[in-house]
């Protein structure tokens, strides 16, 4: 546990000296901010339209998820690929820490950085709460934030895995993006064509976007929590395995 924390702490600090991290954070907050202002402006100026639907927390968390789809690969691409490039992986792998601890520490550092970005967006629900009567639904807000936190965990674990598979940062970036796009958009496409219920059930189960939207609407089932956690664990397990395989090659 201590090793994980040592690695995570270094990783977290490193983001604050990394231009890519600042750009990712800036783009994320800028996008969410612009989206928020536009929606509020539109709603206020078309009050007839917003008679029964005041904007909810989804106008913050929805775009956040979309931006993370691109920001996460940029933040995770260097996690292990860069250590390999700089030769520091050799250093870490000859210290008395387990491969799993290294990988989890790396992931945790990135996760804490993303949580920091998410924490900044908490200003929007406060503003929304002031703007609307009788205020926003607290339950929906909590479920929405749980959804984005779980989604971030999954995205980062996939990114960590890709970074451990490739020595090249750009290869890691595009591989992460590709896998995320599959889980986010493509996985449910076959359900529009395939008429087989059991296959469609599986695909719907695996579809991150569907689960995310359900949670964003304020409903949550146990599998909505367990599935992303399992996927995160799988990603981290594969990363640790990739590091281990590197040793044997």
């Amino acid at each position, binding site marked *: 546990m*201590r*090793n994980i924390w*040592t*690695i995570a702490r*270094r990783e977290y600090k*490193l983001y604050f*000296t990394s231009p890519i991290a600042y750009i990712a954070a800036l783009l994320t907050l800028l996008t969410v901010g612009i989206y928020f202002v536009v929606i509020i402006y539109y709603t206020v100026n078309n009050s007839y339209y917003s008679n029964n639907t005041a904007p909810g927390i989804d106008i913050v968390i929805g775009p956040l998820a979309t931006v993370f789809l691109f920001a996460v690969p940029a933040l995770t691409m260097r996690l292990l690929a860069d250590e390999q490039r*700089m*030769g*520091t*992986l*050799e*250093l*870490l*792998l*000859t*210290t*008395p*820490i*387990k491969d799993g601890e290294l990988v989890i520490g790396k992931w945790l550092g990135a996760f804490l950085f993303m949580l920091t970005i998410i924490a900044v967006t908490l200003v929007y629900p406060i503003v929304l709460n002031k703007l609307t009567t009788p205020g926003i639904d607290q339950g929906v807000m909590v479920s929405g934030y749980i959804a984005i936190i779980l989604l971030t965990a999954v995205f980062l674990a996939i990114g960590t895995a890709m970074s451990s598979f490739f020595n090249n940062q750009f290869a890691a970036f595009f591989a992460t993006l590709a896998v995320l796009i599959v889980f986010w958009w493509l996985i449910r496409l076959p359900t529009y064509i395939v008429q087989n219920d059991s296959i469609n059930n599986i695909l719907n189960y695996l579809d991150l976007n569907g689960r995310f939207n359900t949670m964003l609407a304020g409903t949550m089932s146990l599998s909505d929590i367990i599935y992303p956690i399992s996927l995160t664990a799988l990603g981290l397990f594969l990363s640790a395995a990739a590091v281990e395989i590197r*040793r*044997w*090659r």
Partner: protein
Amino acid sequence: MIRATGLTKDYGSRRAIENLTFEAKQGEVVGFLGPNGAGKTTTMRILTGYMPPTYGTAQVAGFDIISESLEVRRRVGYLPETVPLYPDMTVYEYLKFMADLRHLPNGDDMVDAALDLVQMGKRADGYISNLSKGMRQRVGLAQALLHRPEVLILDEPTIGLDPAQVVEFRNTVRDVGKERTVLLSTHILSEAQQLCDRVLIINKGRIVAEDTPENLQSRLVGAEHVVLRVKGEADDLLPIIARIDGVQNATLQPDGTLEFQFAPTADVRPAVARATIEAGYDLLEFHPVGLSLEEIFLQLTQDNARKER
């Protein structure tokens, strides 16, 4: 203590090292000598727990490198060939990070001690990205010495250092080597000669010779080689020396010195010195010349190549 038994490593179909068996005791500095690509780094990576061997095994500090890898890694200090540093950290932050990973109880003190040892105390707060190559090497060494390891493994540690730094570095290694086991690789033969108690010569993944630098010389030469210089011309001295019993291959060199050999069992030097003086010559210089490790190395690797053919 390092004890390697039959270490073999294959990278795909290429065999990097084959059946390496050797030992390095506590308080011994062992040099790993060989051309680039001989398998030095591979062997060191195996011994430090970075990667497992394909066949064979090794014990480092009393632990098995495969089944007790974490224990081995706790007790080994390793400086890889490309010094692994984080340019975004200060020297102190970097060493503190390593101290944390190694769970050193009084990390700050040990970082200070390691910095003192490599004389980098004044640059502790400087960013690694701003350091010169020599200083980076020293920070890398501090990292390897940080936890006072029982076994120190250094891969080409003096590459890129200027001559003054090399001397300093050698002194540090010699000090450390008094009580711990040091295995260092180099392709600079004079370095092995100066630093090491014992030398392992490795070529194409195999150990071709193993001995003290001095023994390696005499073993290969088979005869002692002596140079003699007198004041004035030595032309007339040559037949006098050549006649002495036991003197072999006496020749006059273009630089005016006289060279001869003798079997190590029959030391003819006193007789030669006497004869020179008695013949009325002023003796200026009289010293043995060893085969340099360069020559030994060429001889050994060529012998091997010939055997393979």
